[in-house]
């Protein structure tokens, strides 16, 4: 085999391994951070018993879930029932393949891009993959053979499809400014000025639709306890439930990473190394997710649909129009 190819493959595998490890670690720590931050915002303390300040709580939760009985309902569609949690978790994780988390670095004479793969249609790849997540939710709702699960799944798919539209359109402005679908190019184009300044409306639309897309609190209707028990994962237990849980956090991290890449300048920043900048911005976004969750109540279903179709969609189209106009005038 060609020597260069072998080295390339080794480097790529190591990068995948590291990125995966970091994401897994972030998911676990996010559980603790979410509970702690939300508790303090709601004038509580949160977990305090397991380890100092409840630091071992995620591990305790994980062990508890591992020991739980793995129940598959008798009348469930077994194949889809088992497939669904995988279908939600995997797309959330593989979106990271195109997200640049640092500048080029040189190790032993080889220059390494700090991105798993830079494909020239990275933007399309992200949306192609992240839309797959909806299938997992719908399949979970259908396969459980439970009315609450089905209603949760239907709601979730309606919500995710509605908001995916605005999610995509909000990023079109950035793509128009950059003139490239590659995420590396988009980050490089933000060296001088971040896109959040050029595209404030786009950023606002992106953040709002991102919340809806990952089913987080103001838009967490698919799992509205008061109406739907637990939504699409009502029938799930043990590690299958844990996978849905992880998928939610993985989705959050992915969506935040996209926000950082498209609007907050990616890894660009003074003084600190690029990877540190990327992680800082990512943590900031994740903190915002938790902050919003501990502040707002849930929207009503019709409000959600009204907001998505009658406000966000026209606004995002308007944003694209304005961006195009300014670009034409400036030449």
């Amino acid at each position: 085999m060609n020597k260069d190819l072998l080295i390339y493959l080794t480097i790529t595998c190591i990068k995948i391994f590291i990125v995966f490890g970091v994401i897994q670690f972030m998911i676990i720590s996010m559980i603790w951070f979410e509970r702690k931050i939300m508790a303090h915002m709601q004038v509580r303390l949160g977990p305090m018993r397991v380890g100092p300040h409840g630091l071992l709580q995620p591990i305790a939760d994980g062990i508890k879930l591992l020991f739980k009985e793995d129940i598959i309902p008798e009348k469930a569609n077994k194949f889809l029932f088992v497939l669904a949690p995988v279908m939600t978790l995997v797309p959330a994780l593989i979106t990271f393949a195109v997200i640049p988390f640092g500048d080029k670095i040189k190790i032993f004479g080889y220059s390494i891009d700090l991105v798993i793969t830079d494909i020239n249609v990275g933007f399309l790849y992200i949306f192609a993959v992240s839309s797959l997540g909806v299938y997992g939710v719908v399949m979970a709702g259908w396969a459980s053979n439970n009315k609450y699960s089905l209603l949760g799944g239907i709601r979730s798919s309606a919500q995710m499809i509605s908001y995916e539209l605005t999610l995509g359109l909000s990023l079109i402005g950035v793509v128009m400014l950059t003139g490239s679908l590659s995420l590396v190019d988009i980050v490089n184009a933000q060296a001088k000025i971040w896109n959040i300044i050029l595209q404030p409306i786009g950023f606002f639309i992106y953040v709002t639709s991102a919340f809806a897309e990952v089913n987080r609190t103001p838009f967490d209707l698919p799992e509205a306890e008061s109406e739907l028990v637990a939504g699409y994962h009502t029938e799930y237990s043990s590690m299958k439930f844990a996978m849905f849980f992880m998928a939610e956090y993985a989705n959050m991290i992915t969506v935040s990473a996209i926000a950082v890449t498209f609007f907050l300048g990616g890894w660009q920043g003074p003084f600190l190394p690029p990877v540190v900048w990327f992680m800082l911005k990512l943590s900031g976004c994740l903190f915002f997710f938790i902050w919003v969750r501990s502040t707002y109540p849930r929207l009503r279903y019709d409000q959600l649909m009204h907001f998505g179709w009658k406000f966000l969609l026209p606004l995002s189209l308007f944003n694209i129009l304005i961006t195009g106009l300014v670009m034409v005038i400036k030449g």
Partner: protein
Amino acid sequence: MILPLLKGLILTIKRFFNPNAVVTQQYPEERPKLPSRFRGLPELQIGKDGRERCIACGLCAKVCPSKCITVEGATDKITQRRYPKVYELDAFRCIFCGFCEEACPVRAVILRDTFELSTYQNKNIFDKKQLLDLTKKRKISF
């Protein structure tokens, strides 16, 4: 539309950065701050002579709505003073109303802040010694 949303965000972030705002009490380690008129278990008080103040008049047993107090009086041979030979309080029956404290003519029964009364036995009766010990631990006499 946006302004009230921002207001909410500001409120929560203020709470987040103010560690004194937390209202949770870490109960077994952190003792609850009880109000001064809190009514816990009725405790027998100790007089100046180091003995119980109770004169076994039986008024507390009489007034008790849940009939949880048993008093058996006796007379001290030397001082001719009445004292309770048996004074039992059934903590399962006690409703912490404080009538015994009000009825007592010599202020021998006072409800203080003893509230951790759970037990592994199927009876929870405090005898005279236990009720006096509660007061002795506080090191107050009058």
